[in-house]
């Protein structure tokens, strides 16, 4: 039982990092990206490729993955600079579909549809992590790190600039803030931290394929952020925990037919999204609708 919980905690931590980084651009910069799974994938594939061909050292594979994701995030930043709202959602959707196609076709790097298997365990100074407990500690440590980094950033002037842009881009521009640079930086930071989760995922599972990085994953991550609460620090973590535990919770409800559990669980979070938007747009952790600023 303990080992089962350790496994769940590891996966929840990884998903929490993803939710936090998505919240960073969604809740604070107002950039509604439906392509988050693509950066998750870039991080995972880069780390895996690096580990398989060069070195499995944590201090080499992870920064390389972060760099790759940050550079690629410029592709997402471009439309973010040009358009907002619906248009940006469409562009990010396009990027997501494109990303999946590339992941599926670029056999040399991603292994194509077959994926990459036999990814070596991540190494710290030559010592390879082997037990699930060690991976859980690593995942929690990374989660803590990401929370720290995002908190520091948000409390700084960079964070204030981000919120200014979210609330009114033209006003921020009028005040002399370099909107383009700030937006690009925030997308790059978010992508780099997402890649950390990707690398962790690849090392932990030892196998990755495109099925983990499709549109459904992006939608699930968005649901985590929304249900937990955008624009809060605790929200994404709560959302990640809730949505990851839902399947297990439902499977213990013996009165539900096993074949429909997956559907029922999706219906549950779809309904949660609707109800929250009507009554509590700030999400579970966020402000109730009366407190939400107009």
């Amino acid at each position: 039982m303990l080992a089962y919980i350790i496994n769940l905690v590891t996966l929840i931590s990884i998903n929490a990092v993803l939710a936090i980084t998505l919240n960073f651009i969604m809740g604070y910069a107002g950039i509604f990206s439906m392509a988050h799974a693509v950066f998750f994938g870039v991080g995972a594939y880069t780390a895996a490729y690096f580990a398989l061909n060069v070195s499995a050292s944590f201090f080499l594979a992870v920064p390389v993955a972060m760099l790759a994701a940050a550079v690629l995030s410029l592709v997402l930043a471009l439309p973010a600079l040009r358009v907002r709202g619906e248009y940006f959602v469409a562009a990010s959707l396009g990027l997501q579909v494109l990303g999946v196609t590339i992941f599926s076709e670029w056999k040399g790097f991603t292994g194509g549809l077959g994926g990459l298997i036999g990814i070596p365990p991540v190494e710290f100074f030559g010592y390879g992590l082997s037990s699930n407990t060690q991976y859980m500690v690593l995942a929690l440590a990374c989660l803590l790190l990401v929370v720290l980094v995002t908190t520091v950033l948000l409390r700084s002037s960079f964070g204030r600039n981000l919120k200014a842009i979210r609330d009114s881009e033209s006003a921020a521009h009028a005040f002399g803030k370099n909107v383009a640079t700030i937006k690009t930086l925030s997308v790059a930071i978010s992508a780099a931290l997402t890649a950390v989760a990707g690398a962790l995922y690849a090392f932990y599972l030892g196998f990755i394929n495109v099925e983990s990085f499709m549109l459904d994953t992006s939608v699930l991550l968005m649901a985590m952020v929304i249900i937990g609460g955008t624009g809060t620090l605790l929200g994404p973590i709560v959302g990640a925990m809730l949505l990851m535990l839902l399947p297990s919770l439902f499977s213990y409800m013996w009165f539900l037919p096993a074949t429909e559990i997956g559907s029922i669980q999706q219906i549950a979070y779809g309904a949660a999204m609707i109800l929250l938007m009507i009554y509590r747009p700030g999400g579970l952790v966020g402000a109730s609708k009366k407190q939400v600023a107009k």
Partner: protein
Amino acid sequence: MLLLQLLINGVQVGALYALIAVGFSLIFGSTKVFHFAHGATFTIAAYIFYYLYSVSEAHWILAVLAATAGAVAFGVFMDRCIYAPIQRHEGSFFTVFVASLGAGIIVQNLVGMIFGRGFVSVTTPLSRSIELLPGLYVAPLSGIAILCAIVFFGALQIFLMRTNVGMGLRALSENPELVRVYGLSPRRLSTIVFALGSLLVIPAAIITAASSGLNPAIAHHIMLISLAATIVGGVGSLRGAACAGLLLGMSENLALMYLGPQWSEAVTFIVLFLFILFRPSGFFGRAIAS
């Protein structure tokens, strides 16, 4: 001959895409609501038609009417019971979009639970191609699709240009506040738009059920096409959405001349992405303030 065949395929597929996109473009352009659940409307209509026509073996007219009723009911329900409460207190693009997304997820799973998650299709001799010229195959269903597209689009134009309600809808997309000043109710007009937009999915839903077939996840694909066509064509322009739908259908097929099939879907999105980067207002849309 391959080129000609792909061109004709492109027009067939494009006509369907145009029909699908126009409904979404109408709703989005008039009410500014990002009706992501439009794909769900399509799914509901298609499955009702499939169930009544193929499984219960009802007369096709009855199936069409039931599908229409279902689609319109769903569209109006979304407007009245979900978008309206949200718009009353906050109505930012984000909250509406998320609620729509949630609705889409629910419908997809309910449909899967009720009708099964596998692939289903309506069998009809109309989907079989006839060899018009050696190497050139066209199905009667494609002819019907193109005809429907022309008829529906024409009817829509007349409605919007000539009738009072139509003019009210056009006014709504320009300036909702001013509409109120003139004594019309934006709320009522909004409901009409949703009903109309949802109705427009019917021909595409039925033809898709008979040609490529259905599965509960089809809403994703529909939504992506509608979105791409609406933006490429220009938000607020129905003509644009129709042309863009046609263009996307053709580019998807013509790409097969030179690229492998695995890149067809990607081509559509590269086109969309480029438009958003360089010409977000699309073909015919108004220039948007950044």
